[in-house]
């Protein structure tokens, strides 16, 4: 607006003619903002979202807590102080002690390890299973696709949590089995997303022309389709993290998750809820931790989705 008005107010420069105009266009061309990649752009949008930023900071804090647990925790998570069981929170026991006198604060810190490991690690397994299956079904179509979709239908008809509990009950407790159980049941959602993306992207003009130029299927998938399908894949994985954390907490809560003495927040809630009438803080603190982590990942996921695809979510 200002530029237009100035031009009109200054007939002299308009009269000087073409060279000035050219110089101006040149200046405008070079005055454009510095080049920013998609990722930088998305990152600045993510940072601008206060809830997402809050989620991200909490997640970073908890990841650091999990890594440096031995340095932060005042006691070992296995140490039983049988002289001081069921202590209320105090300056000596920050969050109290449980039925065999283990320090709740230390156990909470170590519990972060399980939650983070399961939340993030399970996504790698899911990605490793779902990406190839979804990609083949979406790119190849036809019989493979049909077969996959029938299988997905059956998996959807299965009450998922029930299936996870079944697998865990059959395989026995332990971190490794949790990864197996979540991997087996969790890949379905991501495979569907990948398939749908591949299905629509393979019809795009640039893919067709790459094909016409003689690119092989491997090149087309890795260079042309996959980079464009990244956003929904990343978003689905981000929302899968709290789901996996929830699954582990739920499994440990009912006693088929992490094997003791390794502390898990869900397990701590489950073990201590029998004492809730007298020592409510024992089950409340780990419950709060689960809630905080899941909430942070939900905020972060929402923000990430809006940042990567500004058209979605803004209503």
């Amino acid at each position, binding site marked *: 607006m200002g530029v237009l008005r100035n031009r009109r107010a200054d007939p002299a420069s308009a009269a000087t003619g073409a060279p000035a105009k050219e110089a101006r266009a040149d200046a405008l061309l070079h005055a454009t903002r510095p080049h920013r990649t998609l990722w930088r752009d998305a990152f600045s949008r993510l940072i601008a979202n206060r809830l997402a930023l809050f989620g991200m900071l909490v997640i970073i804090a908890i990841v650091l807590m999990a890594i440096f647990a031995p340095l932060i925790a005042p006691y070992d998570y296995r140490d039983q102080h049988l002289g001081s069981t069921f202590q209320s929170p105090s300056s000596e026991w920050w969050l109290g002690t449980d039925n065999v006198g283990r320090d709740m604060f230390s156990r909470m810190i170590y519990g972060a390890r399980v939650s983070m490991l399961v939340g993030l690690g399970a996504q790698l397994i899911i990605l490793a299973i779902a990406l190839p299956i979804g990609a083949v079904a979406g790119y190849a179509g036809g019989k493979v696709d049909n077969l996959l979709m029938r299988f997905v239908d059956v998996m959807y008809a*299965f*009450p998922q949590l029930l299936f996870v509990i*079944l697998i865990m009950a*059959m395989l026995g407790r332990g971190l490794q089995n949790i990864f197996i159980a979540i991997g087996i049941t969790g890949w379905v959602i991501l495979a569907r997303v990948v398939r749908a993306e591949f299905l629509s992207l393979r019809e795009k003009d640039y893919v067709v022309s790459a094909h016409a130029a003689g690119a092989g299927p491997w090149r087309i998938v890795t260079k042309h389709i996959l980079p464009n399908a990244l956003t929904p894949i990343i978003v689905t994985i981000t929302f899968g993290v709290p789901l996996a954390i929830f699954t582990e907490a*739920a499994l440990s809560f*009912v*006693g088929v998750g992490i094997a003791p003495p390794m502390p898990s927040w869900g397990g701590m809630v489950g073990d201590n809820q029998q004492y809730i009438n007298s020592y409510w803080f024992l089950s409340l603190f780990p*419950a709060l931790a689960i809630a905080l982590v899941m*909430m942070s990942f939900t905020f972060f996921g929402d923000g990430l989705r809006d940042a990567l695809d500004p058209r979605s979510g803004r209503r």
Partner: protein
Amino acid sequence: MSQFVLRRLFWLVPTLLAISLITFLVMHATPGSPLQPTAANANPLPPAAQENLMRQYGLHRPLHEQYVIFVWKAARLDFGTSYVYRTRQVTDILKSTFPVSLHLGAMAMAFAVFVGVPLGIMAAVRRNGFIDYVASFVAVLGVSFPNFVIAIFLIVTVVLLLPNVIGFHIIPRTGGWTGPVDWILPTIALGLQPLGILARYTRSAMIEVLNQDFIRTAQAKGLAHHRVVIGHALKNGLIPPLTIAGPMFAAIATGSFFVEAVFRVPGMGRFFVESMLSRDYPMIMAVILLYGVFLAVMNIFVDVLYGVVDPRIRLS
């Protein structure tokens, strides 16, 4: 319509067969045996007794024969005797406990629908107002807090801490399932998650509808605001929330276990884990199939309802 329902019900058969086959394979492919006592430190059964038990349960037959026999009996709703409760039929146990779970589930669903949907509508009508913030707060709470976490919060705040503040008990006890006092907290704990999801879906669907041309036309005609919302926007805005009602019911059904465990509700939820840990094969099969049928029937019901509400959708 009836053709659609019949075809969907027909498809239920292969789906249930697939579910039962997968469950059967998982049960038999993993190490462990139902013939050993599950109690810690219990003495193992002598081989002769194991042999007898195996014959009694029919486990001595080859696997494929066992499966065919199971399907043959299950088709007539005979799931056999529980391995744990040896004197009781599986169907009898479920008959006495399933109604309790269904009761809890129905109340939670009603709570979610009758609070969540109006909340979403009001949030959409008064965007960025107080109710909108309440609605998004509840939605975040419901979506990110597992129901057993909510259950713990409710017990600690309402039952244990609140009486100290206000001086009397609103809800004096937890545990049991004898009267409405026992129903309140489990219903809230189980219903809050679907409530949050419903409110979120309703809000965004209503906002989309309220921005459309026919709403502006209705307003231009001079209709009162509430009549525009109720008479014109609602019909279209409620379709998206309806589509998620099916999977949501599944979440309530399978989630009820945790709530039942925390509040000691005598529903069928406790047989989930108990039967699986003790390898009570007949019980596991019956429980998983019951939920499978429940889930499928709910989905069919929602699909039919979908066609009724939105005549543009042809059921096929």
